[in-house]
């Protein structure tokens, strides 16, 4: 069986600064050679800090921006160009949810109208909206309200319901719970997991929050300055990351247990400007283990028994 989603060597660059008569505009690679595979019903968590390209990646996967190089294959067929008929058909099966639920909704339309909108676009029966609302725990009376009358958690439910109306196979979630308070965050995380179990959804779950990721994902991919530096099954990753950056990320997460205090923040300095990434291994200026080879050569993503890492010194460091 083919994978639900396969992305091969994706590259996307953006222009920085203005072009002038004498100078070509500088470009930087927001996503630089990223390959991923996602199976049906699986959750792949993508984690990284700001500017690492995780949101650009989610746009590429949806075909919302064209990639410069590489390509996305969805369920065996290459992703067609944006705004073609084929793309619209495929977009029924891939949906997007992102952090700002209030921004994703029209303040002047009722909740029901907005949940029904994808059905109207695709000419499908509107009754499906009722089912979607029930599935996310919204009572039918909510349908006649407007977004400003709902709380943040409820708005995120509306956005999820809207994504569900088309019975997608894959939902790309870009920081879906980051803006929510912990008690509400837990409600939405549970909802997301219940829906996956009931409907066999696959998730590409993009976040900076490792504790949520640990809870929801089957596999984890760590991005740094446009590259995937490590990819591993969830448990293997949280038991011990291979890449020094992934380790620093894990160490930096504050553990909610006063008995396990650590006062040793990973001393890795400030992140570089993503528009001007360092050469060779992009992590070397911050890496406590960098050697000459790290400053000279870009490490390839290598396989280590079911997990991949892009670091020259994995073997030495894991001893």
């Amino acid at each position, binding site marked *: 069986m083919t994978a639900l989603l396969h992305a091969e060597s994706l590259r996307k660059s953006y222009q920085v600064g203005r072009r002038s008569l004498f100078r070509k505009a500088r470009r930087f690679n927001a996503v630089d050679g990223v390959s991923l595979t996602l199976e049906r019903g699986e959750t792949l968590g993508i984690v990284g800090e700001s500017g690492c390209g995780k949101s650009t990646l989610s746009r590429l996967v949806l075909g919302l921006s064209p990639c410069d190089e590489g390509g996305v294959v969805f369920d065996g067929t290459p992703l067609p160009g944006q705004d073609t008929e084929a793309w619209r058909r495929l977009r029924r099966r891939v949906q997007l949810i992102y952090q700002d639920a209030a921004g994703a909704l029209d303040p002047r339309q009722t909740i029901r109208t907005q949940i029904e909108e994808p059905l109207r676009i695709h000419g499908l029966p509107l009754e499906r909206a009722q089912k979607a609302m029930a599935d996310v725990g919204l009572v039918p009376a909510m349908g006649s309200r407007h977004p400003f009358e709902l709380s943040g958690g409820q708005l995120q439910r509306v956005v999820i319901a809207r994504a569900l109306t088309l019975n997608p196979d894959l939902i790309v979630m870009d920081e879906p719970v980051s803006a929510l308070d912990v008690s509400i965050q837990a409600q939405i995380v549970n909802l997301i997991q219940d829906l996956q179990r009931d409907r066999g959804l696959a998730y590409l779950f993009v976040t900076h929050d490792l504790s949520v990721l640990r809870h929801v994902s089957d596999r984890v991919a760590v991005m740094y300055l446009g590259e995937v530096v490590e990819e591993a099954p969830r448990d293997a990753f949280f038991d011990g990351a291979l890449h020094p950056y992934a380790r620093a*990320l894990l160490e930096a997460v504050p553990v909610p247990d*006063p008995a396990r205090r650590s006062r040793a*923040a990973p001393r890795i300095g400030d992140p570089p400007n993503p528009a001007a990434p360092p050469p060779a291994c992009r992590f070397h200026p911050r890496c406590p283990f960098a050697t000459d080879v790290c400053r000279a050569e870009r490490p390839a993503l290598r396989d280590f028994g079911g997990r991949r890492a892009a670091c020259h010194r994995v073997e030495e460091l894991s001893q």
Partner: protein
Amino acid sequence: MTLALVGESGCGKSMTCLAIAGLLPKRGRVAGGALRIEGRDLCALSEKDARTLRRRSLSSVFQDATGGLNPVRSIGWQVAEAVRLRKGATRREAQAEAVRLLGRVGLPDPERRAREYPHQFSGGMNQRAMIALAIAGNPKLLIADEATTALDVTLQAQILDLIADLRESLGMGVIFVTHDLGLVAQNADRVAVMYAGRVVERADVADLFAAPRHPYTRGLLASLPERQRKNERLSTIPGTVPTIDALPPGCTFAPRCPRASERCAADVPEMALGYACHHPLTPAPAPVVRREREYS
């Protein structure tokens, strides 16, 4: 000491800080109560005296460091200004002190950096500059209101280390406002949990995490993904936080509380023994074993 003020959005933690710092928005005022800094009640002082006392003894760091700095003045000038205002130093002394402070908060090459402007700094560097500005004149109290929320985790850990380090070397008290219980566990000595405008529980950090007495505190702790076994459903607090204009009578948490009774809907529980609840949870049967706090 570090006191953490923790709660969900809209619970009043930022307003509390603004009230302490005397920065309440125009329409807000302190309606009652007392605010004592080293025994002197700010609310009883004249506005001018209160300002002087605040200027000498407390300062704050907020979430948006880049927005908090003046874009058309150099970083060094801004820190020096704070030094002059708080200490009455001359321009030259203040400039030298500013460079020293910038070095103290871990900016490399402070001499050169002092001449640069906020747009030339990264978010983390701006937050360091804000901290340098805040510790100018050795305040007795530093209010850090979500000071690291906008930063990436690796950076956040470094800034928190810096604050802890400064607290010890300068002997400051820190009020640490956050919604992140992980940060509370890692950084606070004492914790005040706020809900809908009131402090509902106050405790030492070890006791609070080991044996919360207020059902809201327990609900918050239980909803953390870290505290669950993998693949299990997260425990949640049903319902949502009431808005400030529609607070329920009695205990504000009662509508969401699994232990609520009729009494909770009618009587506002008093704060006693560290919690404000009519039906507190019983403390853990075994005494809490407190580990030595790790200070390096």
